[in-house]
């Protein structure tokens, strides 16, 4: 619940900065997944092989990263002309560049696209981390050891099918 609330707050902040919420997530957010589907989906980012402690660290790191990216990229929306000015300054040294105005606009759009894509990807990663942690907490998946290498009791591992036993590799 807490994680959902945080995600919603982030969405609102993104909306306030001009970021299009409707473009934010791919199918992972707009569609609900079963636990089995999530257990499979997180493998796209190798989150299944990360120990729980490392996942917690990654979640904190990426949450901080998201906020930092939003903050430092505000200028893209607050002052596009400032960004374009810097881009133009950078390009004007090249006598070979033709259609400078077009190039400047294209580069600005490029940076905007990079920003949107980064936000989307980080949010997708956070969603996957949240779900993997939830699945572990609920016992749907069981890691075979912790960060220090202490192995999980076999009895606990046997509570789930082998496909839901996480082979930790960190």
């Amino acid at each position, binding site marked *: 619940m807490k994680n959902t609330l945080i995600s919603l707050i982030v969405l609102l902040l993104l909306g306030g900065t001009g970021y299009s919420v409707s473009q934010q997530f791919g199918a992972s957010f707009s569609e609900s997944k079963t636990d089995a589907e999530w257990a499979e989906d997180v*493998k*796209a*980012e*190798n*989150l299944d*092989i*990360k*120990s729980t*402690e*490392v996942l917690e*660290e*990654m979640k904190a*790191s*990426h949450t901080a*990263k998201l906020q*930092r*990216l939003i903050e*430092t990229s505000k200028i893209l929306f607050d002052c596009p002309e400032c960004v374009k000015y810097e*881009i133009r*300054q*950078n*390009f*004007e*040294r*090249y*006598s*070979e*560049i033709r259609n400078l105005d077009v*190039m400047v606009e294209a*580069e600005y759009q*490029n940076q905007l696209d*990079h920003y949107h*894509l*980064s936000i989307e*990807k*980080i949010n997708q*990663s956070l969603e*996957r*981390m949240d779900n993997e942690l939830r699945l572990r907490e609920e016992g749907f998946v069981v890691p075979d050891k912790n*960060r*220090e290498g202490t192995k999980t009791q076999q009895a606990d591992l046997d509570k789930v099918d082998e496909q839901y036993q996480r082979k930790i*590799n*960190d």
Partner: protein
Amino acid sequence: MTKYISIFIAFLCFFLPQQSGATTYYIAYDCADTSICGNGTASTTPFSGLDEFVEVARSAGDIAIVKRGTASTTNISDILPTSDGTLNNPIIITADYDNIFNNFATSSQTYTPVQGSKTMEASASITGIAANDWIYVAGDCYETYNNTNKNPCEYAYEVASVSGTTLTLYLPYKGSQSGSGKDLRVLPDLPVWNSTTGDFQWFINQDHYWHLKGLDLRGTDANCVILSSNSYSSFEDIILQTDGTSSCGFNTSSPNEYFSKIRFFGGVSFISALSNQAQFKDALIDCNNTSSSYFINDSSWFETIYVSATEIINCTGTSIGSSLGNNGGGGAYFNGVSHNNTYTSLSGASPTKFFFEDNYNVIGLNSQTDHRISDNTLATTTVSTTTQLRTGGGPKNLYIIPPDGTGNTGISTKNYPRSNLKLFEYPIYTDTSSKTYTMYFRTSATSAFTINPLTQTATGSTTPELYIECEYYPGSDADRVLKRSNTASAVSFTSDTNWYGISVTCQPGNAGLLYLRGWYAKPREAVSNEFYMDLTPEIS
């Protein structure tokens, strides 16, 4: 016949301990050829491209090892990391230095490496090594079977050419081996990402502490092959190649980035828009005679950069430059930089400084550029020389070429210390006895001055125009004191070319470091005002 692998390759039959929390991944651009592409967690199931490692969530310390001798030039997109490493646990992408993908070889001939040289002679006509292969000399590096950490090898080198018995490297050999009869380990080319005509780039924006080692990155993005913003990243054994017309190597606004053993080929500039501290070491910058090409482009703004053991060639524009509208430039320290460029000046908004040590790779040739406007062909302000040595003095002089101008260039006594030209600064360990420090000066010619530099402070000025000072602790009080020479008419440059001494007597209250400095602040006259200083202080 398989050549016996000599003892210089150490094989360990166990996993080396890895950073806790870190996972090792493997990338092979050609995995589809043998249908082994997979989830990247083993060399037998590698990722097929960089995107699969870079563009998902990674934890600090994660490392991707990339197979050599492969290229990824189709289905390319911008590389957009989204994770952070840490200072002590960066996220690493490295070429294979451990023969994990089993495609290394050992040289058929033996070689004679020479420290500082780009060439090695072989025992017979060279076979099995081609341009763009990499080599290391047996004993300089080690391979670890199933290594899951970054290989620390510092002395692997890219081959520039092979001809007969001569192997030529792009960078001079700096390893520890010498003498004949040395085996070489032969590594395939670095893994190639993109082509020189592909409009794609690495966009490392706010992604902290990434370390890239052993990658051949190409592109034609007008904002450079790598755009690094606030990333604190480091780059080692990197090749950057552009289309040679409108692209550049690095666009970086990150503090404290470190570049080591970099080869840049064919672009408008190696660095564009550098804005913070950076260190460059052992690099080859070849602009390939691209029109108006630079080492650092002319509109960059930097605080402090350190460049050592770097060769800058075929850059046709002002190859080292720093100018900006609102703030002053920083300091650039060059040690052992050689170049063959056609540029005629160093550009810089005051108070940009350039320091060259062993300039043009001439040992002992040290010079400074200070208080100069852009396009000033008399860029050098001070330079070491062995001409006009003082009898009984030191083995080297400093030749001073004062800058002209009265606004933001030139020098004066009015804005100490920024408007003064610092001639030298010596840290001297001394005891608590009173000592007199004397430096000697002489003019280049009596016609070089119409009015002698003032060696006593004039009314309205902060300092004399030519003076030395010592700074030291006077006693148990923690504040340091400054004592300047202040004697009227200590030099007479207008009447003769004799050596004149300027002295200051200092007695620290504590044994320890005393700083001895020399300054010059006479606004340049219509004549040259050039003079010599004996670099060796006389202490009595």
